[in-house]
């Protein structure tokens, strides 16, 4: 049994009629994900890829049973879409949308916490538990079912590393992108805790990048809890010039904290194997698991 999503996940797609929403609904359906309904305001009473579309989450849930939602609606409306899912009792929400204003995200995350809901993202590739459920936009063919859990701050780097693991015979239990926006629903520590309790997961890969201190806090947690499963990591941005923004606010370097060096040192001190190149992760894990 993987974490968060599995065979029993039944999802709605918010923003299903948009270009990305529609395209990835098709791919998720092809992967076998149970997409029971879609929501796009003003497009109710239509169908897309044979999935019925409703104007509101409320109506979708009156007519279908669902326990998860994946959100593709544009950033200015995304916080409201998350709230709509939360208010209608959905406890697993994957937010693909990127660039949600910080103010909106903070307010929504606080409510999600009160409701005991799990928000993946925003600005995440989503989550996949191979052969069970894909709630995201990742290219499915690079994943295989197995025993490695992946937690990542970077979408495309996740694919890079997952593909390399698969090529080396290391399948995955669940791969999850925390999301690249400044405020996200989950951090490394949250997911490390879940993988710890998950019997299918035997090792964890942590993919970080410069900026913030989430990797340092993960290292602290691993040390403090004497984390019982092997962890390997890759940190992007070793060669980034200090003080420059690399793509999103997540990558502002402030003084020493948040540099690749700081993160790598903290993780190594916690007993984590840190790879020099993405393709080195597989080798490090194989050594640990043998």
């Amino acid at each position: 049994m993987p974490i968060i999503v599995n065979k029993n996940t039944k999802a709605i797609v918010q923003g299903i009629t948009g270009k990305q929403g529609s395209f990835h609904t098709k791919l998720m359906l092809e992967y076998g994900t149970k997409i029971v309904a879609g929501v796009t305001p003003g497009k109710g009473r239509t169908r897309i890829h044979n999935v019925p579309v409703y104007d509101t989450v409320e109506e979708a849930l009156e007519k279908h049973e669902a326990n998860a939602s994946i959100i593709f609606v544009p950033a200015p409306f995304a916080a409201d879409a998350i709230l709509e899912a939360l208010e209608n009792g959905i406890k697993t929400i994957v937010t693909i949308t990127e660039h949600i204003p910080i103010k909106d995200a903070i307010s929504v995350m606080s409510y999600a916490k009160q409701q005991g809901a799990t928000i993946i993202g925003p600005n995440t590739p989503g989550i996949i538990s191979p052969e069970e459920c894909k709630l995201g936009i990742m290219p499915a063919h690079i994943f295989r079912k197995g025993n490695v859990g992946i937690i990542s701050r970077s979408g495309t780097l996740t694919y890079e590393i997952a593909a390399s693991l698969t090529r080396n015979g290391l399948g995955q239990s669940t791969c999850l992108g925390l999301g690249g926006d400044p405020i996200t629903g989950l951090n490394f520590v949250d997911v490390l805790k879940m993988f710890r309790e998950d019997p299918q997961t035997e090792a964890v890969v942590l993919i970080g990048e410069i900026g913030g201190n989430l990797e340092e806090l993960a290292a602290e947690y691993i040390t403090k809890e004497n984390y019982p499963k092997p962890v390997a990591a890759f940190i992007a941005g070793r060669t980034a010039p200090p003080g420059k923004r690399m793509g999103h606010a997540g990558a502002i370097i402030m003084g020493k904290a948040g540099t690749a060096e700081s993160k790598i040192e903290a993780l190594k001190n916690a007993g984590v194997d840190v790879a020099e190149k993405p393709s080195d992760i597989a080798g490090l894990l194989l050594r640990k698991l043998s």
Partner: protein
Amino acid sequence: MKLFEYEAKSILARYGVPTPKGGLATNSKEAWEIASKLKPPFAVKAQVLVAGRGKAGGILFAESLSEVERAAEKLLSMRVKDIPVRKVWIEEKIRIKRELYFGITTDRFNRSYVAIASSVGGMEIEEIAEKTPEKLIKFLINPQHGFRSFHARQIARKMGYSGSQLLELEKIFLGLYRAGVDYDAELIEMNPLTETIDGRFVAADARIIMDDNALFRHQEFRKRLLEGESELAPQELEAIKNGLAYVKLNGNIGVIGNGAGLVMATLDTIKYYGGEPANFLDVGGGASSEKIAAALKIVLSDPNVKALFINILGGITRCDEVARGILEAREKMRVTKPTVIRLVGTNEEEGKKILKEAGIHVLESMETAAQKVVEITRQG
């Protein structure tokens, strides 16, 4: 988006935060005129968006109008940390008793805003943060009801104030918070917030960084960002207009990729194999062929670029769209520079087919591709 000191101060003043009287000048004559309406002594401050302006000589003091004129002239002809000074702010110099710090920023781990205060502010604040963090007051702001009057008073008390000074600080802290909320600030700070010798408080310097993701709610600033008065390189400006993230670097390998993490890892890998990237360019998720074409144009406008490395791992980005964008741009711009393309993921087969039909070779491994592009630039 960083705001200039004069912008930040005028916002704070509208929220009831006391700021020194002053005005903005683009030449020494204007500076003289502004100063003539103020009381000496004066401070003349270069308006640049870099940190550490004071230590870099960007702030001068003057006793007389002629000294203001000379100071303005000097600043307007200098560069602060390589940025040319286009405007100066002239204000009345404050008679300082004590320098405090107060600011609000985001706390990612706790998913909230956090207020940070210190009764030892000024240029040393970063040193304090590093060496004696216990001197900083950190107050997490509950997202449910925000930063309230009594939170401000709790902080003022911990900074050692009471009586009317406590009430004055309450107003200032609340004003700053409300400005931050209304302007979607990811950082808003007064450093120093000065306690004057007569016991009043003045924001002697102020800084606001607006949340880029919220600029759609602040079109006037978005406009200012895109229409000049910013310190961006032409390529950076062009990138923002096209929704791309671009950072100029000093090497000769132009890099385009999707996802900040992947692009950073691409730079790292190029360096690992001994190459030097010319830039960071992230096309983001779900880029259209037009966006890819715009990215190529920006990267190629850098004359140092000898070869291109396009690294796309499609998730929400579709490889066929990328392939079409590359062909489009090559055709329009008659690209002759050697290009190494790595393309895998969503609609990979279709993308590869499009490029192959156009005679372009596509690699599958980032590392092989990186080695290849480094090799090409070495030969060139």
